[in-house]
């Protein structure tokens, strides 16, 4: 029986769709937006088919596709999903639809703008679905190009500094990853990620490989102190660029850690977990303070993203400390699940917050908090959504923002009281910077004529806000399906990483 190559469709449909969008632009400019939307929606629907067919009871790769790509080097076009990648793919396709709706009003070369996002979306799915390390690397690097264009063409006044900083940071990181991958290939003769998971490696070599991966993925996450490209990139990026950057692209860093660092070099991860945990805690607390000091809304949300991503990296690396300190693995899976859930949730919430800033920016053309005040008077419905999203950002139970943070704090306590203590500070700092922004922007008397003249959400904006609100609340009220999706793969990962891969041991 013929089976649809679903994953390939998810990768290539948006990319070919993008080509079609560009192709019809001169002949039928009116169809550019509907076509782009149709492609994105179709891709999203296909990803739902993927979800419907996914078997949650197994950690094995599903929907696998494999064919030889470059025979001489044993490189394959090899795709597949498990419980770690599927949620991220679903997030990517959902955000893909929202970006197209959000970019509807772009006037400057809309066909190129929308096409860039479609290409980016296809490549992102490719990153999450790739089971061949070199294929992963190709997608990983190729993604930089559309993002570079999005910020560089449709960005703000200082976009050149931001794009170059963004590009150099990520490129610098990925070079190390390439070296590590080549070394692994020379050892094993294979680029298959699942083969590399099983490859025994001496501890010294593991540590070098681990560090190489860490540099690559830490930049993407981003972890402190290699995070400073993110605020600059966000500030200069157009709204859609910020949304996709925060909601999806940062997740590639976290995904890389669970797909490469932990399973390929578990012993090095165990030996150096203090480093990752330390950097994560610094990100959570230190960056929380830095966020408080921002006067630019996008910068504030960018710093909030870094702080929230600290929960991801913290959760992912708690397993070793738990096993060391308690002699037991209880809580290890909780940490990894929490980290994964935090990535999905952060996708919704940060996307929603950047869209909210976009709503204001489109009207007033300022990102400065001080340009606003009393917006709730003129945009009450928008204020309702914004309060919901910023509350979610501060980890309110009943919203998705709570689920991952709660699980990671529980897991952190398994490892050490002090980890939980520092992580828990976010309860205060997250609420402080989120709600202080709400106070300054939305509450109070109408601050100026620009605010007085604001019009509440358009139907298009309503749609975007409602979709995100449904997901934020849905995951908060019933995270069961999301967690069920990951459970088998996380359990498998925990078991795998707590076994030594050092030869002879």
């Amino acid at each position: 029986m013929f089976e649809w190559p679903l994953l390939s469709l998810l990768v290539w449909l948006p990319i070919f769709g993008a080509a079609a969008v560009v192709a019809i632009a001169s002949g039928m400019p009116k169809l550019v937006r509907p076509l782009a939307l149709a492609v994105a929606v179709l891709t999203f629907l296909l990803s739902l088919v993927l979800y419907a067919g996914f078997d949650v009871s197994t950690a094995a790769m599903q929907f696998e596709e494999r064919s030889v790509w470059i025979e001489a080097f044993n490189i394959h076009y090899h795709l597949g999903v498990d419980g770690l990648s599927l949620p991220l793919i679903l997030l990517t396709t959902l955000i893909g639809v929202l970006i197209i709706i959000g970019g509807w009003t772009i006037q400057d070369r809309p066909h190129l703008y929308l096409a860039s996002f479609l290409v980016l979306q296809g490549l992102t799915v490719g990153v999450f679905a790739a089971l061949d390390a070199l294929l992963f690397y190709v997608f990983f690097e190729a993604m930089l190009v559309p993002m570079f264009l999005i910020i560089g063409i449709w960005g703000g006044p200082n976009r050149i500094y931001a794009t170059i900083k963004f590009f150099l940071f990520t490129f610098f990181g990925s070079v190390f990853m390439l070296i590590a991958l080549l070394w692994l290939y020379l050892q094993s003769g294979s680029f298959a990620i699942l083969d590399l998971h099983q490859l025994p490696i001496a501890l010294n070599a593991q540590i070098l490989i681990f560090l190489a991966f860490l540099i690559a993925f830490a930049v993407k996450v981003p972890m402190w102190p290699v995070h400073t490209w993110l605020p600059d990139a966000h500030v200069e990026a157009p709204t859609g660029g910020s949304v996709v950057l925060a909601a999806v692209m940062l997740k590639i860093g976290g995904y890389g850690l669970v797909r490469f660092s932990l399973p390929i070099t578990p012993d090095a991860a165990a030996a150096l977990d203090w480093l990752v945990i330390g950097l994560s805690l610094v990100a959570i607390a230190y960056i929380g303070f830095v966020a408080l000091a921002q006067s630019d809304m996008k910068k504030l949300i960018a710093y909030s993203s870094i702080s929230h991503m600290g929960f991801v990296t913290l959760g992912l690396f708690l397993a070793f400390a738990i096993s060391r300190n308690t002699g037991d693995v209880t809580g290890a899976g909780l940490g990894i699940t929490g980290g994964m859930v935090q990535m999905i949730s952060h996708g919704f919430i940060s996307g929603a917050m950047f869209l909210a800033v976009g709503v204001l920016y489109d009207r007033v053309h300022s990102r400065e908090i001080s340009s606003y005040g009393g917006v709730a008077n003129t945009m009450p419905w928008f204020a309702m959504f914004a309060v919901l999203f910023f509350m979610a950002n501060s980890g309110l139970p009943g919203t998705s923002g709570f689920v991952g943070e709660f699980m990671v704090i529980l897991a952190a306590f398994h490892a050490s009281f002090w980890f939980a203590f520092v992580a828990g500070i976010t309860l205060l700092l997250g609420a402080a910077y989120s709600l202080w922004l709400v106070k300054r922007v939305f509450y109070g008397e109408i601050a100026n004529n620009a605010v007085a003249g604001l019009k509440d959400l358009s139907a298009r904006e309503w749609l975007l806000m409602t979709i995100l609100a449904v997901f934020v609340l849905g995951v908060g009220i019933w995270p069961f399906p999301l967690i069920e999706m990951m459970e088998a793969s996380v359990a498998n990962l925990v078991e795998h990483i707590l076994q030594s891969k050092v030869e002879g041991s």
Partner: protein
Amino acid sequence: MHIESVLLLIPLLPLAGCLIAGLFGRLVGRAGAHWVTILAVAASFGLSSYVAWEVFFNDLPVLNYSVYTWAVTDGLRFEIGFLVDSLTALMMVVVTFVSLMVHIYTVGYMHDDPGYQRFFAYINLFTFAMLMLVMANNFLQLFFGWEAVGVVSYLLIGFWFRKDSAVRANLKAFLVNRAGDFGLILGVAAVVVYAGSLDYATVFAAVPAMEGQTISLFPGTEWSILTFICICLFIGAMGKSAQVPLHVWLPDSMEGPTPISALIHAATMVTAGIFMVARLSPMFEASVPALSFILVIGAITALFMGLVGIVQTDIKRVVAYSTLSQLGYMTVALGVSAYSVAIFHLMTHAFFKALLFLAAGSVIIALHHKQDLRQMGGLAKYLPITAATAWLGSLALIGFPFFSGFYSKDLIIEAVKLADRPGVAFATFAVYAGVVITALYSFRMLYLAFHGPTRMDEATRAHAHESPWVVTVPLILLAIPSVLIGYFTVVPLLFGGALADAIFVREAHDVVARLAYKFEDGPFAFGLHGFLTPVFWLAMLGVGLATWIYLFNPGMAETVKQRLLPLWKILDNKYGFDDFYIKGVTAGTLKLSSGLSSRGDGQIIDGWLVNGSARLVGRVSAAVRTLQSGFVFHYAFAMIIGLVAMLASFVLLR
């Protein structure tokens, strides 16, 4: 109808009301919004009463079941579920009854407000959240309800969001509560780690196994894990129930409309901390150090916050400080293991304090939103029903015999006297002194508002008249339990074992059982005996002082104030807590933040590391560029040097 469907409807009806009034407010209109929400709460109250009837009179067995599974991971089950026993049933009735009264009252109080529908949506949402909190059978749902009531409180304090003071107060309230929640979440995490479950019953069953265990926070120190957990959880209660030093948000929360001051900041939400400790009594019973801590915090709050109430000039703030002080009394009761008495005082206080707030609100309506006691006086003539009900509420508050507050407060004091644990001596002093203070500020308020010469301006006086029936009927309906509920429930609740299925007390700690003999002749004899106790005469001392100073010698207050100016300044300054938080903590945090932002991220990371590396690359390449001189002999020379160096290294390193 199946009891489980009834239980599900009780919180869901107000939630549905909230959605209808909130999202379709324009569609259903003002009347539609208040009808939908009032009916929802009324139905919820009716069903709660039915459940309470079944629990107290038909011996409905304790229900403990899961409604749905929130998540399962790593062997840990996260459930949403209900635990319905006597404590839950009591709380459900109190919450829905006060909520219903406040809903009706709001029709009058918010009559002209443009945010009418939004207000009803919020108070319906609050009722939902509070019910979820009290009905929880696990720590996850407790935390959900805990934070959800906090959010609605935030939204309601900032209801008039144009007012700067209101949106300052709501941010402050949320953040101070979050400081408490920080403790709470660490406590919950410790529960999960050491008891392996979030489910109350499972955790309680694990208490004996946890008793010997310790946690080491600092090398060389060992803490009993139960003491650690209980103190962490109680820090959460200190935020929500406004105990010193996390009390500072409650007086400011008076920026919100008065109905919510009654509902949220007096009767229900602020008692969540008291409820939680009583609910978790099997854990708290296992740690005397934690109970001592609770006792001392409660005693400090009861005494010192009452004192501040004496110098307040805003009618709502007097009641707010009174609430703080009474919450302190409840906390003291918890601290001496008299959980049932704490819950009893919680219930009586819910009625009479909601009454006092709503009466204050009635005055505020009559005076067109003036709240300053110095511009009132003689209002009893214009607002007879309000004045009468305020008198009843105040008599309950000061513990006048036979009033509801008499039974609950007297028993707290008796329980403290019988208790034996560190901190009792100070607590005894605090609860006795508190009686004088309570009577003093209560009657000061009554006299300044309702009696003596009128100090209003003529225009205000001319318009002052009794409030409409939607306002006075709730006052009357609240006055009835404020007077009677103590008399009728004290024996069954405290000595008849009605709360026994919910509250666990170790025999050695059980001071309430040792008080039972006082009620051998019933509540009437106890009430009569009340006239002979020192507590009564202390209260009379306070009343006498208030009468002498504020009723008979109107100029006297100023003289006393001048005499005791340093003391007055300390009280007026609220002991400097606000200064400490605003000028110390907040300003310090912001300074640190901007320092980290400009120095840490701006100068060190971006300035030195990032752009510094870029500059370094630039300089190196500039240096390298000078090497590329274009002269062949330079290159040849470099090659020879390189070759020599390589050979040398081979030779030397071999």
